[in-house]
């Protein structure tokens, strides 16, 4: 019944032994020390200033969509940094291990990483960047911005929102745990079948990868349900479909993709799990398994996932460019149509990830043309942005630079994508670093949008702007890194370098590899400017404080309420009269008109349940990875028990009364995410009666 795995196993600790901790590897010891120091840098001040209670009450148990969004983004940024370090290690290994004469250190024949270690790093680089960096950041942005853009007080299901967050965090924590306890998958972020089968990957690496993605994708699916329900059901009066801001539109389309594609990934991983744990034969080479079934299922999710990530990025560009061009977006309806066209076509193109499988020319041509079709709506979007610039009044703030930079990446990614879409061309560059360079253009486009969004909406959330000077330095160093690294990588693709090589046999590649390493240097420099940007911004926060509309030319509803946004978002729900509501209010000179009175409304209470489910989820994942059956079983049962217990709790939230609201609104101090507790305690808590059941 259960698959026998090599190595010791005990009922208490499963496969876990002291040898599972790679304490003899200096790189991992260094990474561990770095993580501990970084963790202490956060933890020590929290303890010293006695903020543990605050952290627990206001953040770990929060159901506020803005705080959840902030945690998502912080998680994503930390994971992005780790993913970047992985990328740096990959590049450094390749430049050190070029040619048979290249020396080896730290027990490697070439370079400084033995194959098993290198393979883990390239796998975790992809897994982290796609699943645990970009996805959480975009989810977090959607969480923060969408309810504000549609004039809602919170998400449709606030507690489920927190559960989504903690499940995603569990996945990230499992990947982190794999760094220090055991190992990570060596079979790539896509989980190449049948390399992921127990016969070829008997260690816990693939299990870490499998459960990290599986658990976090449950969180993503729940978040998609929540987002769609919010956008469909929670819009402010007058927010008709033809007035919905583009970022909200793209979030809607992206979550429809998420909702319908993540279950397919769930199936693929569950069947792989059945192979690895129970001994079934879904994806084995022999005994009736079909490894291409895995590849198909994975990419039936995997390609929509690409658009799951890129559509919100398009939405961000569509918000940032009009604000800094001081013009409405050109072709709103076309833009929405293009968004949904991309979302629809994304389901029909998965086979282009394996044109080399040996399918016939007609099948390949079908998927080739379907893939090219994506280029039509994408081209439309580019035209829309270009014509938004036309006759605008452009201000090149850091967010605008990122947004325009993303356009250039999209163009390069588009040209190379069209090359890859042609099977005959694909046969020469598939699985080469040309593909890597192509999709890094697209993923960097998403990263550029993320940085645009961070700068653009940061003042909305925290009440002060990010420092422009260091922000631009960050942009220029990062862009220099992008240009240098990926031009060299495209060149290497034409030279025939394939992907995932930990030793390179061809010494002619050396100059390009060195250029790539220089690109990494610029990226490292950009990390410094990123940190400096945060430091300077926080230092000068008083100077950079902003009002409701941080940019003065913003167009959408989120800029109508205070910056930072108070925990109840809008004291009175705005009545929406047109598309680009705020611009309309500016044009009619009513942007400053405040509500004349306040009315009580209902707010949800914070709850520890989501955090508890997260902790138990980690117990389940860790137990399954190490085959500690009692731990996994207990955690799973406990999750079910917690859910049932919660369904019996009659937690109705509380009523924020008109008086308390008036007091909060008149307080001449910044309200919002950072300062919630003190204002709640200042306001008369006796006003907050328990809400009645309906």
């Amino acid at each position, binding site marked *: 019944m259960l698959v026998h795995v090599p190595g010791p196993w005990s009922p208490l600790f499963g496969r876990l032994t002291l040898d599972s901790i790679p304490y003899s590897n200096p790189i991992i010891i260094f990474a561990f020390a770095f993580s501990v120091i970084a963790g202490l840098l956060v933890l020590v001040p929290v303890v010293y200033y006695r903020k543990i209670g605050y952290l627990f009450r206001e953040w770990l148990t929060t159901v506020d969509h803005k705080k959840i969004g902030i945690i998502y983004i912080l998680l994503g940024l930390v994971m992005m940094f780790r993913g970047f370090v992985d990328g740096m290690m990959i590049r450094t290994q390749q430049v050190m291990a070029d040619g048979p004469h290249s020396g080896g250190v730290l027990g490697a024949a070439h370079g400084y990483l033995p194959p098993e270690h290198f393979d883990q790093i390239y796998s975790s680089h992809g897994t982290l960047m796609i699943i645990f960096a970009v996805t959480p950041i975009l989810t977090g942005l959607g969480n923060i911005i969408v309810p504000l853009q549609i004039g809602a007080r919170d998400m449709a299901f606030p507690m489920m929102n927190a559960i989504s967050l903690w499940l995603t965090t569990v996945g990230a924590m499992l990947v982190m745990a794999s760094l220090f306890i055991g190992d990570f998958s060596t079979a790539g972020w896509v989980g190449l079948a049948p390399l992921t089968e127990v016969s070829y990957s008997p260690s816990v690496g693939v299990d870490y990868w499998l459960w990290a993605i599986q658990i976090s994708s449950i969180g993503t699916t729940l978040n998609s349900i929540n987002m769609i329900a919010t956008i*469909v059901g929670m819009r402010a009066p007058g927010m008709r479909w033809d007035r919905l801001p583009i970022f909200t539109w793209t979030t809607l389309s992206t979550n429809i993709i998420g909702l319908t594609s*993540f279950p397919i990934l769930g199936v693929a991983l569950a069947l792989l799990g059945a192979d690895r744990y129970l001994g079934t034969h879904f994806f084995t080479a022999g005994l*009736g398994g079909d490894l291409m079934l895995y590849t198909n299922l994975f990419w039936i999710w995997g390609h929509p996932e690409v658009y799951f990530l890129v559509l919100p990025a398009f939405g961000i560009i569509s918000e940032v460019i009009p604000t800094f061009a001081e013009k409405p977006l050109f072709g709103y309806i076309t833009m929405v149509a293009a968004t949904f066209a991309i979302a629809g076509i994304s389901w029909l193109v998965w086979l282009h990830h394996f044109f080399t499988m040996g399918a016939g020319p007609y099948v390949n041509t079908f998927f080739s043309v379907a893939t090219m079709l994506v280029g039509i709506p994408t081209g439309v979007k580019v035209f829309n942005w270009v014509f938004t610039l036309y006759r605008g009044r452009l201000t090149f703030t850091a967010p605008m630079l990122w947004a325009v930079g993303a356009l250039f990446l999209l163009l390069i990614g588009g040209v190379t994508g069209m090359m890859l879409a042609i099977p005959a061309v694909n046969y020469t560059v598939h699985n080469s670093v040309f593909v890597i360079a192509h999709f890094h253009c697209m993923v960097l486009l998403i990263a550029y949008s993320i940085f645009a969004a961070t700068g653009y909406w940061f003042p909305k959330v925290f009440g002060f702007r990010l420092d422009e000077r260091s922000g631009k330095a960050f942009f220029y160093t990062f862009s220099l890194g992008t240009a240098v690294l990926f031009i060299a990588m495209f060149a290497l693709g034409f030279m025939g370098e394939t992907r995932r090589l930990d030793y390179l046999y061809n010494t002619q590649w050396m100059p390009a590899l060195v250029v790539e390493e220089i690109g990494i240097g610029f990226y490292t420099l950009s990390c410094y400017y990123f940190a400096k940007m945060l430091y300077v911004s926080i230092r000068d926060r008083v100077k950079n404080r902003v009002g409701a509309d941080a940019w003065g030319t913003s167009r959408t509803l989120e800029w109508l309420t205070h910056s930072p946004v108070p925990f109840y978002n809008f004291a009175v*729900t705005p009545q929406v009269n047109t598309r680009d509501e705020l611009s309309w209010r500016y044009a009619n000179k009513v942007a400053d008109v405040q509500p004349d009175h306040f*009315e009580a409304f209902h707010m949800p209470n914070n709850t520890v349940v989501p955090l508890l489910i997260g902790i138990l989820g980690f117990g389940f994942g860790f137990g399954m990875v190490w085959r500690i059956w009692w731990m996994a079983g207990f955690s799973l049962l406990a999750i079910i028990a917690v859910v049932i217990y919660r369904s019996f709790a*009659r937690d109705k939230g509380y009523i924020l009364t008109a008086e308390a609201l008036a007091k909060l609104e008149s307080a001449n101090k910044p309200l919002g995410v950072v300062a919630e507790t003190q204002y709640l305690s200042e306001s008369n808590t006796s006003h907050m009666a328990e809400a009645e059941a309906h």
Partner: protein
Amino acid sequence: MQMNIVKDGKIPPLWHYGHEEHDVIGAKTFGFWLYMLSDALLFAGLFAAYGVLDHTMNAAGGPTESQVVHPIAATWQTFAVLSSVFAYSLATVALKRGNRAGVVLGMLAAIGLGVVFLGLELADFASLFHAGATPFTSGFLSAFFVLIASHGLHMVFGLLWMLVMLVQVLRFGFSTAVVAQLLNLRLFWQFQASVWVCVYVFVYLKGTI
């Protein structure tokens, strides 16, 4: 075009005062429909895997579809699951009238029939295991067992949910939260029955042809 200044100087309302009526049951039901969409895709993935692996080649010399399906037994299972849905529908009718005893009785019947369904399924599995046809024999049998067991697992969760709701109906009566859950449970239960009908048609009936 949208930047138009209001011509007559009459600015329409800017703020929406008053308590917005939130349709709690409506929101929860919509959310649950979305969940079921994802569940439907999950089964679509499993059916696709089954379709791919349902070939003689994937049976790897082991038993093929026609040798493992027991359509007669599966017909009894179909009766059990459909009657369970019918019993739950009676409970919903009682819910409309606010008849607590009717709801409890209907749900008890639904639980009983659900248990019968699972019992029949386990018996079928046991006989297959006894005959040496296990999920570990071949790719085809892996898909066969995992598809049916995934549905079975959903049924187990449905029964667990019903037990919880039974207690909640007795304890809280028909509060908003309880009614919303009862309605969602109805959706869930009917959905699992329709998935079973698909299993019955695409696995058991197709296997006999």
